[in-house]
């Protein structure tokens, strides 16, 4: 199953490669100092991230872009020039102008205001399913890796099955069963995404379990739960940070794909994918209606990917462990 681990994500490959490796000198040093000490401390991680942001201009800029989007999402009711849901029939298909920066849609609703409100949806889609799936993935990965045996077998076969599906298709099936709505997208994406996290965390737990500091804790009679959550979990944080930043753009793209197929967010709620879907029919007469939301998705997802790339580089020394 080694190959499966490797193709998942670069970070997974890193964790897999560490399975049989000797402890790096740095880590051994920490472990010697104090049996309770973790391999890494949180300050170190944030220092790495900060210095990455100083050096990697693209990642820093991406973070700025994300913060702007977050601000727009938070302040949407204040910034939006119009109510995103009020149709003004006389303004139907109004081209972009000073009054309507991005024109109006087929019902005469201001496209710019709708985009702004769509930012809220995408922010939520990026954060909520990613968080849910990662919490479950981390817990299951920890249990599987730490307990091994039957627990491991059951959890990981389940993960294998979920990962065997092309993720969009599985999400489509879940949406079929649950029906299209934002809430159900959260559920669908969480169901699809937990397995990847579980696999990475399991691999890392298995290698950490063999380290001296865990053995020391165990020999001192520290309880299993404490070992798992106080000793092993903190050492998975670098991996989790990388997975988190890279899972967010994936979730956003999945949501927009589902919404574009008409089985995601349903009107009257707004979503960028839904906006592209609705404007598809007017592509050749009012192309701006389809172009604007697409550009926004691209910029938003790209910013997360650039940032994620930088974060992965910054976490590299930890991941190699």
């Amino acid at each position: 199953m080694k190959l499966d681990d490797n193709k998942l994500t670069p970070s997974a490959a890193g964790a897999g490669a560490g399975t049989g490796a000797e402890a790096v000198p740095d880590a051994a040093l920490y472990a010697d100092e104090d049996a309770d000490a973790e391999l890494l401390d949180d300050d170190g991680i944030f220092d790495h991230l900060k210095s990455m942001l100083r050096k990697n201009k693209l990642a820093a800029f991406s973070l700025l872009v994300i913060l702007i989007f977050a601000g727009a999402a938070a302040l949407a009711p204040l910034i939006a020039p119009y109510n995103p849901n009020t149709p003004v029939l006389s303004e139907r298909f109004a081209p972009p102008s000073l009054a309507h920066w991005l024109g109006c849609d087929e019902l005469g609703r201001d496209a710019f205001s709708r985009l702004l409100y769509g930012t809220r949806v995408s922010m939520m889609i990026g954060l909520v399913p990613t968080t849910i799936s990662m919490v479950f993935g981390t817990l299951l990965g920890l249990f599987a890796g730490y307990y091994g045996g039957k627990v491991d077998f059951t959890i990981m076969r389940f993960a294998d099955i979920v990962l065997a599906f092309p993720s969009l298709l599985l999400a489509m099936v879940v949406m079929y069963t649950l029906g299209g709505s934002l809430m159900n997208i959260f559920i669908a994406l969480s169901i699809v995404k937990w397995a990847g996290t579980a696999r990475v965390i399991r691999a890392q737990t298995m290698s950490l379990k063999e380290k001296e500091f865990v053995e020391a804790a165990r020999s001192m009679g520290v309880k299993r739960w404490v070992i798992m959550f106080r000793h092993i979990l903190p050492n998975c944080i670098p991996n989790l940070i990388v997975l988190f930043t890279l899972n967010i753009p994936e979730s956003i793209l999945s949501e927009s794909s589902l919404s574009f197929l008409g089985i995601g967010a349903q009107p009257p709620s707004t979503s960028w994918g839904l906006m592209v879907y609705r404007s598809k029919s007017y592509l050749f007469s009012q192309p701006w209606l389809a172009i604007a939301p697409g550009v926004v998705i691209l910029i938003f997802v790209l910013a997360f990917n650039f940032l994620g790339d930088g974060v992965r580089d910054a976490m590299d020394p930890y991941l190699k462990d």
Partner: protein
Amino acid sequence: MARYVLKRVLISIPVLVGVALILFLLLNVVPGDPVTMMMREHIKPDLIEIFRERMGLNDPVLVRFGKYMLNALHGDFGMSYKLRRDISELIFQAFPQTIKLTIYAALVAWCIGIPAGIISAIKQNTLIDRSFMAFSLMGVSLPVFWAGLLMQYVFAFKLSLLPVSGYYSIRHYIMPSIVLGWSSAGSIARMTRSNLLEIMKNDFIRTARAKGLKETSVILGHALKNAMLPVVTMMAIQVSGLLGGAVMTESIFGVPGLGVLAIDGIRYRDMPLLQGTILFTTVIVIAGNLIADLLYSVLDPRIRYE
């Protein structure tokens, strides 16, 4: 080797059964009675009961699953509620389009991805490298459906170079293949680059350079051969990934493949159609991944088979 192959094949059987079971459970807990779906309103309740019995809907779920699997193994995925046709027939009509699209897209991905990765590695940390890598991230970040619409607008509508949609000739496949292949091109480029850079640290590369070989022949003759191994397997995985990703592309460009069939299944709430299509696609994807794994161990004898 034979034992390893056998073992890998045997491992995938429970996964296949699990996939089918999960799919079955997900789709059969759906609220709403399939018989009323099929017959619309105003039918007598006793008639519904007769049909339920005849369709085997009154059996326990696991019995129904067993029956479904037995039939599926014989190539029978049941009857579509909406289209009233054999689903296996529909699948076999749709499959060639999807396979064609997938292969063309894979070609696009390799033809762009591999050279881009090589150039990036050679010119590591230069402007070319950075822009190639930024470009490849853009490929991953681009919403496929939007790229498709944009291409339709520019190349079909504004420039009238290509047909908007359809599947009648190779020209119809140009835009869908590029749209679908683009994102894979990005990941192939990244993988080629990082593998090549990793290999370049090896002793035999230093030796080759010390012999006085030109840098191009060091890279193309010595390094590339070794760097391509993981990329080859990744290609196989990509093909199966593309197969899954074809859904969006097909729906935009009106290619009547498996993806469109699945979307029809959702749109018409045609459960057997959706189930059959997704099961078939997933089985193909699993088979693709299996072949990729096996290919890797054949190409690289250093892989140990536990």
